C-alpha cells in the first residue's frame, strides 16, 4: 500500500471512530440531556402532556389534590378533525376529582414551532391574571428547552416551572432504542428544539 492510500485509510478510520464515539456519547448522555422534574406552587397548572401513552392527567389531578395550584388549563392543538385532546383531558380530570369550575380549555394552532405556541399560552395566563404557572409537559423536555421556555415566560412577567410525571420519564427511557415510538419521540424532541433555533419566528 502506498503512502497516499495509507493516509486516506487512516483518515477514514479516524472519521469512523469519531462518529462511533459521538453516537456512543449521545446514547450514554441522553438521561443528562433531559431536564429533571421541578415542582413549585403556582397560580395555574397548564396541562400540555395530554396523550394516551402518558399519565399526564393522573399527575395533574395529583398535583391539584396536593394543592400545588387551584386552577388548571388543559391546552392542545387539533389531533384530528375538530377533535382537541384538551377537551377530553378536561372530562378525564373531572372524573379524577378536579372541580369542573377550576378547569378551562385552551386550543392552539397546529405547529411544530415552539415560538408560535408560547405567546398563545402566555396570553391566556395573562387573561387569567396568573403570575406563576406550573407547566406539565411531555417527559422528553430537554434542559435547554426548559431554560428557553422559562426565559420566554419570565420576559412576559410569569414565573414558569416545568414538570412531568416521573413514571413517564422512566418508561420513556427504558430501552428506548428498541421501541419505535420512544425512539421517534426522542429524535423528534431533539430535532424540533434544534430546528426552532434556526428559524426566527420559532426561537
Amino acid at each position, binding site marked *: 500500500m502506498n503512502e497516499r492510500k495509507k493516509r486516506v485509510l487512516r483518515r477514514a478510520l479516524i472519521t469512523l471512530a469519531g462518529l462511533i464515539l459521538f453516537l456512543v456519547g449521545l446514547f450514554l448522555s441522553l438521561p443528562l440531556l433531559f431536564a429533571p422534574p421541578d415542582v413549585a406552587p403556582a397560580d395555574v397548572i397548564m396541562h400540555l402532556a395530554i396523550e394516551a401513552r402518558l399519565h399526564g392527567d393522573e399527575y395533574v389531578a395529583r398535583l391539584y389534590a396536593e394543592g400545588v395550584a387551584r386552577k388548571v388549563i388543559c391546552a392542545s392543538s387539533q*389531533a384530528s378533525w375538530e*377533535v382537541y385532546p384538551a377537551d377530553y383531558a378536561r372530562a*378525564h380530570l373531572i372524573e379524577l376529582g378536579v372541580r369542573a369550575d377550576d378547569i378551562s380549555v385552551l386550543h392552539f394552532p397546529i405547529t411544530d414551532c415552539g415560538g408560535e405556541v408560547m405567546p398563545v399560552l402566555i396570553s391566556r395566563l395573562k387573561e387569567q391574571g396568573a403570575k406563576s404557572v406550573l407547566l406539565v409537559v411531555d417527559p422528553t423536555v430537554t434542559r435547554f428547552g426548559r431554560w428557553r421556555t422559562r426565559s420566554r415566560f419570565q420576559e412576559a412577567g410569569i414565573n414558569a416551572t416545568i414538570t412531568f410525571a416521573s413514571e413517564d420519564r422512566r418508561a420513556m427511557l427504558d430501552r428506548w432504542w428498541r421501541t*419505535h415510538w420512544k425512539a421517534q419521540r426522542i429524535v423528534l424532541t431533539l430535532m424540533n428544539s434544534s*430546528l426552532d433555533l434556526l428559524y426566527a419566528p420559532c426561537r
Partner: protein
Amino acid sequence: MGAAAVTLYFLTPLALTAAARRLMLTDPLVPADVVIALGGDARCMRERGAADLYKRGFAPRVIVSGVPCAWGIHTGDAAKRYVTSLGVPPDDILVLRKSWNTRLEAIDVAGVMRQNGWHSAIIVTSPFHSRRALYTFRRYASEFTFYSAPLPTEPPEWQPERWWSRRGDMGFTVREFFAWINTLVGGLR
C-alpha cells in the same frame, strides 16, 4: 478553490431540492378495491383526498386509520366522522385502530384486504411520505397491488422547493430522511 465554492453554492440548493423530490412517488390513477388514507395528519387532508377519490369512483370503499389519542378519544373515529361529513356513507368506511406507524398500518391493511378478498388499494398520504409508504406496503403486504396517490404539494402541504427555508417543511423533510434510515435497516418495533 473559488470556482469550486461558487459551484457548490449554486449546486447545493438544486441537490437538496432533488433529494426532497425523491421522497415523492405518484402513480397514474387507476380504479382499485379500496382507497386508504394513512393516519398521522391532524388537519385530515389525507382523509379529504381519499374521500375525493371515492366520490370520483376510483374505489368503492375507504379505509381511515388512527390511534387512541387521549382519554376517551380515537383519531380513527374522528377521521371516519370527517369522511362521512364529506359524503362517504359510513358503511363504506373502515377504521384501522392501532396504526402507530406505517409498518403497522401496512400489516393491518394486509389483514383487512385478505379478510375481504380485496386485491388492490390506492394509498393517499402526504407527498413527502408517499415513496416510503408505498415501499413499506409493498414490503409487508406483498401479495396485493398498491398505487400511490399523494396529496398535491401546495400549502399547507409540504413543498420540496427550497424546503430548508421553511420551518415546517424542514422538520418534515429531515424527519422523513431519518424514517427512511429506520425503514431500510428493518425498522424498530
